[in-house]
């Protein structure tokens, strides 16, 4: 595979998993790419993707990130509903 595309594992939790009817997906997109690019791709391509917010809370590889953070091949990108722990 050429280094001009990146494949990331996307995970959905809680309410978001219910909205798209699944807890994970694989997304490929042109490299370089940001988390925002992943969000746009998911909202466009995934059935029910439009039910997710345009600017969700996100994490890459278990760390909170902003939408302009870059993603690399193999990253795990998570869509996090508003946090309600404690």
């Amino acid at each position, binding site marked *: 595979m050429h280094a001009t595309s990146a494949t990331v594992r996307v995970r959905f*939790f809680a*309410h978001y998993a219910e909205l798209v009817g699944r807890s994970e997906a694989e997304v490929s997109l042109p490299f370089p790419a940001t988390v925002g690019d992943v969000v746009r791709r998911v909202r466009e391509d995934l059935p029910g993707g439009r039910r997710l917010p345009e600017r969700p809370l996100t994490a890459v590889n278990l760390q909170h990130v902003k939408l302009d953070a870059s993603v690399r091949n193999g990253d795990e990108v998570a869509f996090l509903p*508003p*946090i309600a*722990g*404690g």
Partner: protein
Amino acid sequence: MTYLTRTLLSIDQLVAEVSSPACGGTCVFLGTVRNGPEETSVKAIEYSAYEEMVEAEFGRLVADAAKRWPDARIAVQHRLGTIPAGEASIGIAAAAPHRAQAFEACRFVIEEVKRRIPVWKKELRVDGSEVWVDPSGRPTHV
């Protein structure tokens, strides 16, 4: 220690983890599932999490607290699964040489948990309905 459990939280265990001869003050916080006037008959809350991230983020959170209160000793555990009203969903213990540090460190941890730890809750109501809790305001019926 793992920061997550699916069984009853033990205050005694959290306190035992942080106690030390140098610590004269221990502050404990327990967050409990309510069924009060503000909760339209909540029977239980179902807690779920991005578990691998919870563990990683709790590690960073406790390290942040240790930087601010180097003499404090901190233990925290979050419970997941269905928790009936009246039982605790989170337990935090902070011990320190002096009480101000213990109170501040304990308060810091619960405030950061609310901000950073990826845990979600769904209210299970006595009428059978289920509601995702969005602390920013709007409850979301599912």
